[in-house]
């Protein structure tokens, strides 16, 4: 596991790239910009067909700017014919996804195990 700009950790498994947010609160514009650079770098360095999982296990608070970041990430992943899944979302934060109806456009899983369960091997 490698640390990138201390805001995320990245784990590469046989069938997925797992990005874990390391901060409890994601609010500041500069932090969101740093996250975007780090995660886009992970996406660009992978081949097409990337299975990207974003793990929110540490996150207890986020702002709507983070939702914007997730949308930009999803667009990039789908442009590269990959899949994006979110997991381990705290109930209070899941409520934000429900209110904004982003539960309709993101694949959200209860935990990492279920998020990785049916992913095919990346060629």
């Amino acid at each position, binding site marked *: 596991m490698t640390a990138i700009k201390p805001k995320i950790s990245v784990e590469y498994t046989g069938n997925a790239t797992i990005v874990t947010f390391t901060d409890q609160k994601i609010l500041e514009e500069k932090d969101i910009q740093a996250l975007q650079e780090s995660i886009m770098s992970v996406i660009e360095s992978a081949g097409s067909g990337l299975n990207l999982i974003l793990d929110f296990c540490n996150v207890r608070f986020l702002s709507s700017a983070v939702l914007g970041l997730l949308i930009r990430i999803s667009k990039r992943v789908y442009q590269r014919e990959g899949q994006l899944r979110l997991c381990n979302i705290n109930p209070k934060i899941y409520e*934000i996804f429900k209110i904004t109806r982003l539960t309709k456009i993101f694949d959200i899983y209860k935990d990492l195990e279920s998020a990785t369960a049916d992913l095919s091997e990346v060629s």
Partner: protein
Amino acid sequence: MVLETPNNYSVVVESRPSAIGEVCRQILSKLQGNSFSEDDIFAVHLALEEAFVNAVTHGNKMDPGKEVQIDYSVASDKIEIYITDQGEGFDPQQVPDPRVGENLYKPNGRGLLLINSYMDVVKFNERGNRVYLVRYKKKPELKTDTINGMNRGANNK
């Protein structure tokens, strides 16, 4: 600058998104001191962040020469907050609903929806450069304040 009477506070801060940090910590601490629930604290925190970012970016248009005024009072049953920017104001009725159509896929435009969803009262002045926010500890029976059809969400009621 902070002006205080026993339960009323007025703070003027720089117009940059991170400038809310210290004020936010003070407000949340007062909520804890008044035994507000974790849900209440989460809700006020989110609404405060979103309203302040709106004031700085859409109101003051990131002009570092401008300021944002935050007036608040914390009582045993509710918190009231006024956030005032120095911009030209806006019409909240004209803000598109981020939950419908192509808006769902846009990266921004969800701040006002979240403010409306997490606060019990959300009112703008006529000019649209000042927002009044209230969160009650015990929820009112009926919420009548809506903006652009955005009723308060199903959260933590």
